[in-house]
């Protein structure tokens, strides 16, 4: 079955420290991977996506993600966390079958402490 897993419900980081939000996937065919962020009482915002090419993808707000095919992972990273990064983060995979449906992970809540 095709799926996306975010193994951590919550990640706590001190401001200024690097952060990682983990995502693993299981799909047949080429994986098209996305990260979205949801701030309180707002809709999801696109952060970045991996389609092909360079395994390190840079996105909005200083975030980047590393695609690792052998580990089937697409972890979200940021070198120095800000308190304003505190939000709910969703990893998603776009499927080529079923009308290009998107499957979202369960979400990881990031708390950045000052």
């Amino acid at each position, binding site marked *: 079955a095709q799926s996306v897993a975010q193994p951590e419900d919550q990640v706590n980081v001190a401001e200024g420290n690097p952060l990682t939000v983990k995502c693993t996937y299981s799909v047949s065919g*080429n994986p*098209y991977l*996305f990260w*979205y962020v949801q701030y309180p*009482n*707002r*809709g*999801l*915002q*696109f952060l970045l*996506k991996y*389609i092909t090419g360079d395994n390190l993808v840079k996105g909005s707000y200083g975030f980047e993600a590393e695609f690792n095919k052998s580990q089937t992972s697409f972890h979200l990273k940021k070198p120095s966390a800000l308190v304003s990064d505190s939000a*709910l983060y*969703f990893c998603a995979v*776009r*499927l*080529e079958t079923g*009308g*290009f*449906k*998107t499957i*979202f*992970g*369960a*979400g990881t*809540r990031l708390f950045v402490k000052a």
Partner: protein
Amino acid sequence: SAVISQKPSRDICQRGTSLTIQCQVDSQVTMMFWYRQQPGQSLTLIATANQGSEATYESGFVIDKFPISRPNLTFSTLTVSNMSPEDSSIYLCSVEDGLAGATDTQYFGPGTRLTVL
């Protein structure tokens, strides 16, 4: 990127009534999507709406309960019919930035927070 607005932003409704949620996009888009999200949880796709055709519903969602209209390329509505407390959720409208390809990015409206008493 597309700018999406939804109305209402929130509502409190009595069980047995219906609520229609509007989604307006600032540009023409091929596909629009309706999702349901429990606060702090993941998204569940309700249906996909293409202009000029019937919406395609996901397993567990039916047209009688969630009728959708898509009269043009910038607008769609989702109605939650005969509501029960289990329908309390956040309803999100979403569009794609391309031509329904696998690499398309989705953009989301701010959501409608529905509470059914």
